[in-house]
C-alpha cells in the first residue's frame, strides 16, 4: 500500500510522475463520487481530470496537515461547485432525478434485493445535499470521521451529531418509501 501523503510530498518536490500513482489509486473512487453527486458520466470524467489538474497546480499548497484523500476531496468539492457556479443554467443532480423516475417505475414491480437498493438510492436522493454528502463520504468514499471533519471544516463532535441526523433522516425517508411501496 502506498503512503499517499508521502507521494504527494514527492509531487510537491517536483517528481510529477508520482501523480500517476495517486491518480491510479483514486480515479475510480473519485469518478464514482462525482457520479453519485448526480453528474453524468462525461461530466464526471471531466471533473476527475479537472481535480487532478488542480492537484498538480496547487501542489505547493499541500501541507500534509490532513490526509491526501481529504485534501483531494476538498479540491473535488470546490471543482464541482465552481462548475455549477459557471454553468448556472445546468441543473445539479440531473442523474439523480432520472434515477428517481426510473426507480418509481420499478418500485411497483417487486420488492426484493434490487428493489431494496432502489429504495436506498431513492431515499438517499430524497435527503438534503448536505446530509447526503456526509453519508456518501463515509459510506462510499470510505473517508473516516477525522478526514471528513477536516474536509468539511467542522469539529469531530459536530460531525458525529450531523452524521447521526443524516442517517436518521435517511432511515425516515427509507421507511416512508417502504410504506408507500407496500
Amino acid at each position: 500500500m502506498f503512503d499517499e501523503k508521502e507521494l504527494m510530498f514527492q509531487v510537491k518536490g517536483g517528481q510529477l510522475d508520482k501523480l500517476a500513482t495517486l491518480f491510479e489509486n483514486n480515479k475510480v473512487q473519485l469518478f464514482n463520487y462525482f457520479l453519485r453527486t448526480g453528474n453524468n458520466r462525461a461530466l464526471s470524467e471531466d471533473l476527475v481530470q479537472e481535480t487532478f489538474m488542480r492537484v498538480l497546480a496547487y501542489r505547493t499548497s499541500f501541507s500534509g496537515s490532513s490526509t491526501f484523500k481529504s485534501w483531494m476531496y476538498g479540491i473535488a468539492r470546490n471543482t464541482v461547485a465552481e462548475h455549477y457556479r459557471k454553468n448556472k443554467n445546468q441543473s445539479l443532480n440531473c442523474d439523480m432525478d432520472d434515477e428517481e423516475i426510473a426507480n418509481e417505475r420499478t418500485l411497483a414491480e417487486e420488492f426484493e434485493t434490487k428493489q431494496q437498493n432502489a429504495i436506498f438510492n431513492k431515499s438517499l436522493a430524497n435527503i438534503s445535499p448536505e446530509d447526503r454528502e456526509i453519508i456518501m463520504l463515509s459510506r462510499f468514499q470510505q473517508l473516516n470521521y477525522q478526514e471528513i471533519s477536516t474536509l468539511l471544516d467542522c469539529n469531530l463532535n459536530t460531525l458525529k451529531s450531523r452524521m447521526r441526523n443524516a442517517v436518521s433522516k435517511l432511515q425516515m425517508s427509507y421507511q416512508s418509501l417502504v410504506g408507500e411501496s407496500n
Partner: protein
Amino acid sequence: MTNQEIIDWKIASLANNDKSELSEEMQSYLDKNAKLKEELLFIDHFWTNDVKPIVMPSSKLDANFYQMLSRAQSAQQHSVQQGITQLAMPQNGYGASLQEQPVSLLDKVKSWLMPLPIAQFATLALVFVLGFNLNQSRSNNMNNSDYIGLQHEVSSLSTMLAISMLQKDSASERLSGVAYSRQADLSNPLLVEQLIELLAKDKSTSVRLAVINSLGQLKSFGSSEQQLFTLATKEENLLVQIELCRLLLNYGSVDIKNRLTDQANQQLLKPEVQEFIQAQLMASYI
C-alpha cells in the same frame, strides 16, 4: 452510555471495516432499546448492501490525464533547462548586479574614508558595513536562486494552464486560453505547437485570429515558420489568410517573405491576398 455513542461506534466500525463485537455494556443497553436496535439494523443494512455498484470510468479519462501529466513534465523540464542557462550566464542579468554590489559599496566606503582624519572610527565602521554587506549579499544570492526557482515554477504552471485552456471544448474558453498564453512563456515549444495546431484546426475564426495575434509576440518563428507558410498558402478563410500573410511579412525571415511574394506574383493566391501582399510590399518600399 447514549444512543449517539452506540451509533458512532457502529458507523465507525463499518467505515473502518472493524469487526469488533459490541461490549457487554453496549449490548445490555441495546437490549433495552428496540428503536435503537432498529436504527442499527438499518445502518448495518445500508452500509453492507451493494447499494450503488462501482462504475468504471472510460479509457478516455486515462488518456487525458496522462496527456496532461506529460505536458506538465515537459513544461517543467523546459523551465529547468531555461533556469540552468540563466544561472550559467549571470553577467547579463539580475545576478550580475547583485554580484557587483559588494565591490561597488566597498569602493564607496573606501572613498569616504580616505580623505578623513577619523580613520580608526571609520575602520570600525567599515568592518561593520563590510560584514553586514557580505552577509546580506550571500542571502541575496540565495534569495536570487529562490526567486529564479519561483519564477520557473510560475512559468511552468502558467504554460500548463494555458495549454489546458487551449484544449477546452468551448470557443470562449479557448479564446481566454489564447489571451492567457500571452502572459505565459511563449518560448515554450509545446505552447507554440499547441497554438499552431489551434490555428490549423480550430473552427472559430476569432480563436484563429487571436492565435495569429499571439504568435506575433514571438517575433521569430524558428522551425515553425515553414508550417506557418504552408498554412498561409493553403488557408481558405480569406481573413485568416490575410492575417497570416501579414504575420509572415512582418516577422518572417527574408526567405519566407520572398517565397510569399513569389506566390503572389505567380498568382497562386486569392486575388485579395495578392493585392494585400503587393500593398504591403509597396508600403515597405516607401
